[in-house]
């Protein structure tokens, strides 16, 4: 019978669980979500590709048109790439609802913006 007092107290308290689809818990500040490349800072060096343990990052193509193809289904959100990047171009976003049914959609391509005409 040792729980009676506690059980009655709980009745008055607001439930600790959240109504998930309606109320969403926002992740903490330093949360390691899916990595995002900021292509302006990116030097297209392959440091992140070598640092990634499950080899989820691949640099495709050469020169300015090269693009980073990041396959999210291999990624394990360990933030090694963010640490290895000399220019800090990779940041771990806060998105964590990443479930999907089609692995094809899980490959993200990051390209550099084409240089505007007047700059040439």
């Amino acid at each position, binding site marked *: 019978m040792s729980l009676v007092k506690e059980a009655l107290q709980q009745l008055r308290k607001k439930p600790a669980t959240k109504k998930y689809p309606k109320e969403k818990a926002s*992740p903490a500040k330093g949360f390691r979500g899916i990595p995002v490349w900021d292509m302006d800072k990116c030097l297209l060096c392959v440091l992140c590709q070598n640092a990634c*343990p499950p080899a989820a990052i691949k640099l495709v193509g050469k020169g300015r048109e090269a693009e980073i193809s990041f396959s999210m289904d291999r990624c394990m959100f360990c933030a090694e790439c963010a*640490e290895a990047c000399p220019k800090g171009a990779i940041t771990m976003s806060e998105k964590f609802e990443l479930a999907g049914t089609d692995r094809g959609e899980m490959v993200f391509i990051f390209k550099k913006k084409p240089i505007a005409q007047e700059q040439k």
Partner: protein
Amino acid sequence: MGYASTIKVPFGPQHPALKEPEHFLFEVDGDTVVNVTLRIGYVHRGLEKGFELETYNHGLYLAERVCGICNIAHTVSYTQVVEELMGVQIPPRARYIRTIVAELERLQSHSLWVGIVAHEAGFDTLFMYVWRDREAIMNLFEELTGGRVLHAINTLGGVRRDITPEWETKLRKGMDSFEERTKDYLRIVNSERTFLKRTSGVGLLSPQDAVKLCAVGPTLRASGVKEDVRADDPYIAYDEIPFNVVTSESGDALARTVVRVEEMMESIGMIRYALDHMPSGTIKVRPPKIAPPGEVLSRAEAPRGELIHFGRSNGSAKPERYKIRSPTLANIPALCKTLIGVHVADIPIILAGIDPCFSCMDRMAIVDRRTGEKREIEK
């Protein structure tokens, strides 16, 4: 056995009492267990072979994923082995942060376990309360390491994130509220008569058997043997942080519960002490890429018991042989011993007694208790 031969009751690989796939085949005579046969390997992923193909840095993430609940213990052991192989000395502040995170994980793992034992005994309300309070620790982990379960905070040469002052205040506040919740659980666990009826005197393990069968961790300490890797063979910062090893005399399922809850109280005290005496300075040292030939054995006190990592390097960037022996594996003979001669209804509680973490254990091996009569263990 005469006419009434034993019937074989399969437990697992999918069974509500087992959180992970394991197969126990119980020979039940009437309502008491006569013999248990164990078949494991359902989550064996060949990690040891994997270590040999990965560089040291990437092997860290393999070690972290051996087990979800005690991954700090695995990364602490792994980094110790590799740092000793490479001859790297980590800064004192990193040692303290590792200890704090290791103790926090012990809190999280033990409270998870208390909830599961309560659920096995049908005490669902305590299960809900304990797991609700555990969320506070998971949130603390999320803020510090960025991950609720897999905290990639230990790395070769130190830790990746430093403890900021405001996180420290949150930690202290979290510890205060968690402490008095733990006192509450201790009171409930010791006083709730229905829970006592289901756990006291169930699954007895005598000290002699515990030592003879090489049991480890809370299962060993609940039988009255005072052995804890943190006190006997201190690693990271455990030699500078005072704590007392919790033991209990009765060696039954209740003792294992009480020992774990009291260990949570100890961990809270240790975290506070570590926060007060936190040295300042850098938190990371750059490790070399390759390790000179050598072999190192590191022992850590995972929440479930003594965890052994044994690494051997051959001068290249990849380990030559890496062996992990997890605490659940060492507790299996003790588990099989306590399972003989109990009621069928008590099996889940005794199974949960050693806090089995089969993904840890499976990563390597084990045993089919030779069928036939009970003589093997006393061989």
